[in-house]
């Protein structure tokens, strides 16, 4: 008897149930498309154009509904993890369903724009999958049981002690310590998504080391700076990881709305010029 797993992630949820579903869907549709010649032309156009297009639109609406389901904590059908699993795999399937429905015609017009938007949305979603699969454990490992607030407090403690050391430090050492305190910045703007800025505490510590002072105060200051550097490093990494997790969604959600809008416009265009004529 196999032991039940304590936790299975959203990607492996229920033994990849939704992955198999998506693969099955794409394979069925692709097979139907390759056997399209068997159908009389008008019926085929109706089934593949409008039928598949309707299916793809329904899938898109279900994908978009995930955003709503995510926030309805109290009630909602099915587990949220299942919803996320379905969301990811159906989204990937959509990349293939759309060209199959459109006969692989993607041109520089509204219809092509609709597909491009859907594609970009799904690609940003894949980024999200990577982030959500990799980052939570990394964040936890980085924090080592501390909260961000804890880290701020520890840095502040080091700061207070460094202030107190000022009378015992030489002028040069004091300058280093004071300029480090003035320069320290944690976090950042959009750049933090891609790279972490230089650790000023680490630099100050090394400068102090180079002075090779002998006083106890200087050694204590070096130690405090080292602690600060480690803590600041952790904080920067934490901010970067969490920013990536959040910002990705700041891109994914508006993109998905734009994709929905253009897809609806494309559908209206396809209908308004004659249902049944393709």
């Amino acid at each position, binding site marked *: 008897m196999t032991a039940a797993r304590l936790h299975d992630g959203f990607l492996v949820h229920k033994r990849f149930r939704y992955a198999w579903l998506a693969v099955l869907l794409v394979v069925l549709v692709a097979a139907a498309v390759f056997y399209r010649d068997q159908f*009389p032309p*008008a019926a085929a156009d109706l089934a593949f154009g409008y039928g598949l297009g309707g299916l793809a639109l329904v899938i898109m609406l279900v994908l978009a509904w995930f955003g709503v389901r995510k926030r309805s904590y109290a009630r909602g059908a099915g587990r949220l993890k299942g919803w996320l699993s379905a969301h990811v795999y159906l989204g990937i399937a959509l990349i293939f369903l759309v060209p199959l429905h459109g006969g692989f*015609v993607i*041109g520089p*017009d*509204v*219809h092509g724009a609709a597909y491009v938007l859907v594609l970009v949305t799904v690609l940003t979603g894949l980024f999200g999958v990577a982030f959500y699969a990799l980052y939570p454990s990394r964040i936890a490992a980085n924090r080592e049981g501390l909260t961000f607030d804890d880290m*701020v*407090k520890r*840095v*502040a*403690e080091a*700061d*207070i002690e460094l*202030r*107190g050391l*000022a*009378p015992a*430090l*030489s*002028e040069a050492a*004091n300058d280093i*310590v*004071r300029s480090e305190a003035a320069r*320290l*910045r*944690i*976090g*950042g*703007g*959009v750049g*933090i998504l891609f790279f972490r800025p230089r650790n000023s505490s680490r630099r100050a510590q090394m400068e102090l080391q180079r002075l090779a002072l002998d006083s106890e105060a200087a050694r204590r200051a070096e130690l405090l700076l080292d602690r600060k550097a480690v803590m600041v490093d952790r*904080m920067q990494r934490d*901010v970067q990881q*969490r*920013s990536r997790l*959040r*910002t990705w*969604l*700041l891109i994914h*959600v*508006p*993109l*998905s*709305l*734009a994709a*929905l*809008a*253009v897809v*609806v*416009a*494309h559908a*209206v*265009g396809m*209908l*308004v*010029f*004659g*249902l049944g*004529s393709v």
Partner: protein
Amino acid sequence: MRLLVRHRLRRTRREGYVDRSELLEADEIRIGRGSDVELHLSDGRVLLHHATLSIRDGVLRVEALDNAEIELDGVPSRAVDLTPGHTVAVGPYDLVCGDPSPDCDAVIGIELTRPMGDAEQTLRTRVRTPLLARRRSGWKIGGAIALVLLLIGVGIPLGTFLGPADAPKPVEQNAGTPSNTDFLRLAETMWVTEGLSNVHADLEAGCQACHVTPFAAVAETTCAACHNTLTAHVDPHASFSANVDLSGGCASCHQEHKGPKGITPGVEITEAGCISCHTGDIDPGDGSDLARVASIADHPQIELPAAPLSGLIFSHASHLIPQGKRSPDGTRKVLGCVDCHQSANEGQDMTLPSFADGCVSCHTLTFAAEEPDRRLPHGSVTKLRSFVGDFYEAVARGDIQAPEQPEPPRRRRPGQAAEPEPIAPPKPVPAHILAERALSGPAVKGQCATCHALDEGVAAADWSIVPVKAVEDWFSAARFDHDDHKKDAQCSTCHAVTKSEKAEDVSMPSIGTCLDCHGSAADFPDVDSTCVTCHSFHGRTDQAAGISAPAWFAGNKPPHPESFGELTEILRNARF
């Protein structure tokens, strides 16, 4: 000097102050952060040795050391003479000179007026994480963009239905009228997937030319509004084989929005498409045969109309002799096909030569010695008779003078006198006798009989011309364009007339001649030959229609229906 120092320390609970006083005695009192100074200030912004206090001439003097900073009223100085009531800034401290006291030289108060602030609070102000903010803005931005895109996306296609609601006009080049033309062109660029066909690309009404009603497919009647001279190939209500599905009307074969040349049907009208019905298995139900054609290479023999008795005596062979025919001016003229047959109908057909166009250049029809240049009229025997009669009457009246003839040389019989006897002038013959002689003799009748079969009457002069009959339209069920073949073939490729001696000879080519160049695309890839190259799928109401022209179409004027609907009604009842 004796210096009383009052350290003002703030209490945090209320705004009250606590003073701590100390009395310093030294010649020079140094202020700084270091442990060896007299007046110790522990803030890190104070240098180890920051300044010196001294009394000069009873006045308290503050001097800055090295690169320390002291400021009086915001102005940096190196030395300040401090009088009671005035303040000098030493780093983050304010040093105020107090009122002198009897037991010391000077009194000063020191207060840390610019503390560094709470470490944690300061640190928090330096932590910037804008990207971890609430996500509500994401929905707002996304929603706004989506709304705009939706309005544009739905507005433009629906907008193409706004505009002048006229019936779709026939093909009219876009005259560049402003108003909604640019909008239509924009809409077309945005919405049309594979491009409009070349022929429909410049319609003035734009999308509205065909898409008349929103949410409705383009109806067959819309096509017929412009293409109103076509007939249908088959009765649309017949239930034939489903291989070619004609239930979609025009759209079964003609699909718009498939690119510049997409409107031309594809496989439906290639050889394979036509053969799918013309397999010989279909019974049209009215007893006629639907021609069976297995492939173009198996095309049945051309059925030519029977050539009637033409009434002409004409030999192509004799006219086409290589050394040429003698012409009236004495020279020999080599004749070619184009000397008599010209192209007509915009190059499609070749004319049957008429006398006036071709023959008359050599067959001048002069007949009388009395007036060698006068020609007989051609075309009507009645006119001929009256013409000849009038001519000889004119001769008898003396209106027409015979040209002067030179005296013939006189001959003398042996033994006769040299002086000849006068020759008596001949008795004048009456005009009508002359006319009759001409009409029954070689001068007139003989000339006519050269080319025409004559219908003899009782008298020799009583004849008429057998009416000339010729076939006008050899290929009534197909279209042959002579101009299209000019580049690749000569007349003799298809018409073998060099040995033809009779006008009744039929020199039309057989299907074998056509199949020398036309066939399946696989065999003859360079030649454009599908079934519709020669046979039209859609007939025209003013010509023989379709493949097998029914009796009431060929030769008779068909009814002219007012609309495509009416025509469809007619065709529905007439099966062909």
